[in-house]
């Protein structure tokens, strides 16, 4: 059965049709063609599909599309504003914090969620917060450093 869903995605009020068993991840990618959000494992282990759901960081592969009726979803596609990259995106590019890029949207969304509640995290806090985001390319150091650099940028402590 197709279900009619009304929701807000990256600030835009949207309506779409979804099969009842469809995950939010599949609805984002296959129905709404918002392919910025990636599928890694599909079972909540890797964090590649991370999105914010009503202000909470979640794996969109472990949410049904039907569950977001009336909710607000934020994806990696809402990070840049008016063509200007988010400080995290800039630092990831400058710091070479990605190789294949499949995990990157999830890391960006998860890191943004952290910096919203903790603008000045320690390296340890960043590593624990991002423990549910797996990267098989970088070895994590460049990602962690880029998050810390972006946090400093957002606090206005860098040029």
């Amino acid at each position: 059965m197709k279900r009619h869903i009304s929701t807000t995605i990256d600030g835009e009020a949207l309506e779409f049709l979804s099969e009842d068993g469809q995950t939010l991840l599949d609805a984002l990618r296959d129905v709404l063609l918002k392919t910025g959000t990636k599928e890694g494992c599909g079972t909540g282990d890797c964090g590649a599909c991370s999105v914010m759901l009503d202000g909470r960081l979640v794996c969109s592969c472990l949410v049904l599309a039907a569950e977001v009726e009336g909710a607000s979803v934020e994806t990696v596609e809402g990070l840049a504003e008016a063509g200007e990259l988010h400080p995290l995106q800039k630092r990831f590019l400058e710091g070479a914090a990605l190789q294949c890029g499949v995990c990157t949207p999830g890391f960006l969304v998860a890191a943004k969620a952290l910096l919203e509640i903790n603008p000045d995290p320690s390296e340890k806090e960043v590593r624990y917060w991002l423990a549910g985001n797996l990267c098989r390319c970088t070895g994590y150091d460049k990602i962690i450093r880029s998050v810390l650099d972006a946090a400093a940028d957002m606090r206005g402590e860098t040029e």
Partner: protein
Amino acid sequence: MQYQAVKTLEEAVERLSRAEGEHMPLAGGTDLLAQRRAGRIDPKGVVDLKRVPELAEIVLDDHGYRVGAAVSGAELGEHPTLGQDWPGVVEAAQLIGSTQIQGRASMGGNLCNASPAADSVPALIAAGALCSLVGPSGRRELPVEEIILSPGQTCLAPGELVAHFRLPRPGPRTGDAYLRLIPRTEMDIAVVGAGVALELDADGLCTACRVGLGAVAPTPLRLDEAEAILVGRRVEGPVLDELAAAASAAARPIDDMRATAEYRVRVVGVMAKRAAQIAATRAGG
């Protein structure tokens, strides 16, 4: 797979009973949707319980806490007093999975998934938590340790669900703690787990104690011997060694990819002992 969000317990029970077990209750979905993806379950439908107020809220009244079965780990951690009154329970729930999983996963789901290694369950057993169950024949209350019968199996009747957990408001000089052993620092399933809740008198002697053990038997266990070992004594030295020995003696684990049975037997004693030390420190001992 059909999806239905319900707003009342009556609706939830009605829907789950009518479907004769072919529909599953959905809380955070972090086990259900992962198992469905892996092909281990294939429910005809799910009944989303997160919009039922009793399942979604934490209420503190004269009787203590009523923690909704679908409250997420993140919400447990954000509550202004629950983590001070029951730090072991909140820490145990928050050990489950990643930040993302914490945004969804609930203690009701952790219990009803019925894994022997469920982290929140030994802590809830130690805390003396009661489950309020609602089903076609009404409401009943059971201690947490009576819910899981075997791996993946609970005592819930068809159409019955866990509505909330009841935790008392702890008195002065009480403390609880949960420790689990995993070979890495995050994102793993318990090799063993141990939860301890205890109360001390003004002289530092234990007046009440409950211990729950995880991942050392087909179900999480309550260590009944703990009370006889600890009550009337100081939580230190040889008393702790007796507790460790009792925990090891009660363990009947399996060998698997995470550890050998022999290792689990030994290390569950160590975890019980250390959790008791933390609980006693929290109780002011």
